[in-house]
């Protein structure tokens, strides 16, 4: 099991400060795609499930907790930026789980931690978006996600589980999906 922590506190602070001033959105970013804080080494998903810890700013944690407590969380965006595949011809798709670092190939999509998936397009670089609000709400109501836990860790763990196509027994050794950043944004709720 690999858990990779990707935190870039300088940029988180910038993002949150900007969000506070506008009131339109808040975000926690891991990575420096805008370049404010300097380069961040690219992260990699290989054939084995990989978990990334996405830091949340204090303001985001408070707003997230508020919306979850009031049942009003409708949109929480998970953003994977600049994903670049290598040796991915036999990749069927990648499933995504929230707060489930033990997720593996056999974890079903009916698992309450399941948040969605992606199938690669044809572009060299791909940015992808998911709304993980239903998953967060589900976890909150079940007690798997708590105010105490959020306040203590100030992060969410996102696990990617690559699935090979049925016709391929496994993904090749050189299979890799590198990406620049993984972000959670909490926009104004619709």
């Amino acid at each position, binding site marked *: 099991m690999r858990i990779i922590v990707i935190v870039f506190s300088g940029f988180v602070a910038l993002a949150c400060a900007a969000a506070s001033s506008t009131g339109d959105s808040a975000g926690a970013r891991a990575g420096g795609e805008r370049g404010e804080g300097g380069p961040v080494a690219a992260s990699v998903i290989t054939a084995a499930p990989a978990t990334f810890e996405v830091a949340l700013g204090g303001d985001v944690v408070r707003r997230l907790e508020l919306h979850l407590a*009031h*049942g*009003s969380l*409708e*949109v929480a*965006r998970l*953003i994977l*930026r600049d994903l670049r595949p290598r040796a991915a*011809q*036999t990749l*069927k*798709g990648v*499933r995504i789980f929230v707060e489930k670092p033990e997720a593996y190939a056999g974890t079903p*999509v*009916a698992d309450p931690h399941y948040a*969605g*998936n*992606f*199938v*690669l*397009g*044809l*572009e060299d670089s*791909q*940015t*992808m*978006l*998911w*709304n993980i609000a*239903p998953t967060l709400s589900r976890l909150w109501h079940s007690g798997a996600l708590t105010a105490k836990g959020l306040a203590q860790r100030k992060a969410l763990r996102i696990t990617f589980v690559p699935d090979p*196509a*049925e*016709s*391929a027994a496994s993904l090749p050794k050189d299979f890799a999906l590198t990406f620049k950043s993984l972000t959670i944004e909490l*926009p104004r*709720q*619709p």
Partner: protein
Amino acid sequence: MSTRREFLITAGTGLAVGFLYPRISGAKGAHKGAAPLRIRKNVVTAAAQSDLDSLRKGVAEMKKLIQTRPNDPRGWVLQAFIHGDCTQFTFCQHGNWYFPPWHRSFIYYFEQLIQCFSDNKGFALPYWDWSRTHSVPRSFYGSGNPLDDDISISGRCQGAPSPGRGVSETTQLTQADLDTYVGPGVINSIQQNPDYTTYGGGNPGRGQLEGTPHNFIHRWVGGVAGGGRKVSNMVQTFSPLDPIFWLHHCNIDRLYSNWLARPNHNPPPESQWRDKSFNDFYDCNGNRAGAEFTCARTLDSRVMGYVYDQTLALPAALAVRAKAAVSPKVVGSVATSRAAVKAGVLSFVTEAAPPEQTRRFMNAAAGGAASYVVRLRIDGVKTPKRQSTGVHVFLGPDVTAKTPITAPGYVGSFTFFDGEGEGGGGGGHQHGASSFLLNATKAVQELYGDTSLPEGALSVSIVTRALAAGVDAFATVEDIHPDRIQLDVVNLGA
């Protein structure tokens, strides 16, 4: 510029009007010449067969142009090259918020070309609903069949696939594929997402509609490379070479229409999106086209002259979501399950007058308060055997079997579409009960906008009529008798 709320009201009534009386001459922003609305249908149904015949004829003509007029932009290969050439995407929009509207225009102009080449001005592009039909339809296979994936451009593009798809006509989507990527549960979940950015795409960023079912079907039809396995045009930048591309994207477009019709589902408000148009296509005369359709203008597909057969029949999951009534945005409700039939009219009357707070919110909606919508939920509607039936819903008293849909209090209409399957695991009958959601705000405004809601109970009436002229056998209100009706006041929070 219309507000989102105005669009919802238009969709809630106008679509139904268009469906039953397929002409939109009076519709705001009507398409040129106000021709009858085209109804795009499920390809595996009997109703779509004449369109399928026209498609076959039109595609054959476009494929002939490859040889006879190789520089004609209406030819089959050059149409595909609008999407992508040998090495890269050309004009198509992927991985951003233009994905739904660009492909809407792309298939619209393709539909126009098929109309010309098949000499059928009424042609409507059918869709392949892979959630219910779990294989590529059989009508897209066969030697000499222009709808087969029988074109290879390997002479022009190095490494281009040989003819033939990555799946055969007997290959079925697996249960795991359905559960994860394209089944009804997945699609319902994606369609319920109220956030356009994560649904249709961001600026930039690939939304779930593109990243899950769209991409999956391209790869599933196209096949997996390696080990001597066959891959096909569907996993190339020039994927429109495979005729099934157009029906796949028609289904994606159908889902986009469905998403837009849902309460509180708003497209991007930014002018960068709303005012964007794509002059990337060609009309019947081979002239460049597309500039007239901005993203905002095409939100209502009637502007382009078409609707889908299922637009108003919202999926059961939406009804379940509404039934849960856990959303704090529903600020008041009043229900009724007492009904009586008289002279062909099924009338529900609420058990009691709406509670004071609900009444206050309804009056706010009636008075035009922008943030309040009155939603009518009809549960337990029986699917009749005679499906050529239009069901019309009215709010208020004194409704008769002949009350016109132009009368004040008309809420909207719905019909049934539970088509016959061509095989391949989909399209079978499901004679069960359904739920429908209608936007009743306009009806409330018409009836009570200048006064206020009556003090007593509210009534909702339902009548059935033939779906089209010439149809004399249709279901009665007893045949479709719903179990209950509920009026919800929804605070959109605008």
